[in-house]
């Protein structure tokens, strides 16, 4: 009986395949002798054994990061206006990509002239005052030191957006740590919310300057008091 079922199913699907090339594009394998015609679904052989042995089993599944408004999960699809709104992917065509956030490299888009957002809401010719000054911030931990580039920030923002409310414009006056940033203070006022997100992929965007060659991690007070013998 099981053999009959197999034959029937095979025949049915075979018929479908021959009838519509579109369905064969969905990923069925058809072999002629030893020649494999479509290899699109070869990775499925892993799942054929057991899905328990696949890589990244517990990671979040790959999702469409730029879903159109009616499918994005918080726009109401029953609202007429939702369907009038532009889909992000439509707007992102041709822009340089990244692996995080909006999946668009916004600064690179500006640098390459792919985008020309206005600096003044009325006057399209007004240009930003760009200050090209890098601030190096040594980091106590063993991660690379932080380089803060003013250029990328002054392309988008006015000085008054950050100074003096968020950052006091004076050397050594700003205590910054990752806990504060993750909770939305200091750099975290924008980063992790609207500018690039804070994730393992993006550590090195800020922590970009290697430690000096003679750098050693500072010893903790405990080991200074009670050195290991």
């Amino acid at each position, binding site marked *: 009986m099981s053999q009959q079922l197999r034959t029937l199913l095979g025949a049915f*699907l075979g018929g479908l395949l021959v009838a519509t090339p579109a369905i064969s594009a969905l990923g069925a394998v058809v072999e002629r002798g030893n020649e494999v015609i479509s290899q699109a679904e070869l990775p499925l052989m892993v799942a054929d054994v057991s899905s328990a042995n696949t890589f990244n089993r517990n990671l979040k599944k790959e999702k469409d990061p730029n879903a159109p408004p009616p499918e994005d999960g*918080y726009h*109401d699809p*029953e609202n007429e206006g939702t369907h009038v709104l532009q889909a992000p992917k439509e707007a992102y065509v041709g822009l340089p990509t990244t692996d995080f956030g909006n999946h668009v490299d916004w600064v690179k888009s500006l640098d390459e002239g792919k985008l020309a957002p206005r600096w003044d809401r009325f006057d399209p010719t007004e240009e930003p005052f760009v200050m090209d000054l890098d601030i190096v911030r040594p980091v106590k931990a063993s991660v690379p030191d932080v380089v803060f580039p003013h250029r990328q920030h002054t392309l988008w923002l006015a000085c008054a957006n950050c100074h003096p409310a968020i950052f006091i414009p004076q050397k050594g006056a700003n205590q910054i740590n990752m806990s504060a940033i993750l909770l939305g203070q200091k750099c975290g006022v924008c980063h992790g919310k609207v500018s690039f997100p804070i994730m393992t992929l993006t550590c090195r965007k800020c922590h970009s300057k290697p430690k000096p060659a003679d750098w050693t991690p500072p010893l903790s007070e405990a080991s200074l008091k009670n050195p290991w013998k």
Partner: protein
Amino acid sequence: MMSCNNYKFNWRFAILGVMAGLATMVVSPAQAEYADVIINNYADAAGMRPVVFPHWFHRIRFRCKVCHADLGFQFKAGGNKITMAKIIEGKFCGACHNGEISWSVENCNMCHSGIPGTPTHIHGSTVQRLISPPYKALNAQPQPQPQQPQPAK
């Protein structure tokens, strides 16, 4: 096989392939755009859908400075206490959404397009990912909205 004799048909792969294909087609993944802000200070209470503000759309047209320096938007979701009265007076969104720079405020549903009950937040923010539970619209509780249709889910 029946349909074509010189084809050896591997039915197991065929079934798997078709199933996988259908799965990717049918299951539409719902993940929204990074940095979209849902603002629900007053909307639910007023019987309107919450506002969804797309940062990406505005960033393509204006630099951050225009809104966050010139127009006085604070860097805080829900921190600006925006009301329709202020918008009509030409403050906040009303500085551009006045029929001159951009479309005017009679297009209610283009801003007020969120699922009712969604709390104020920035979508995909680090704080949201690390600390608070994932935001979901509180659809289980019926909203006092005589004219608005209830959301699908």
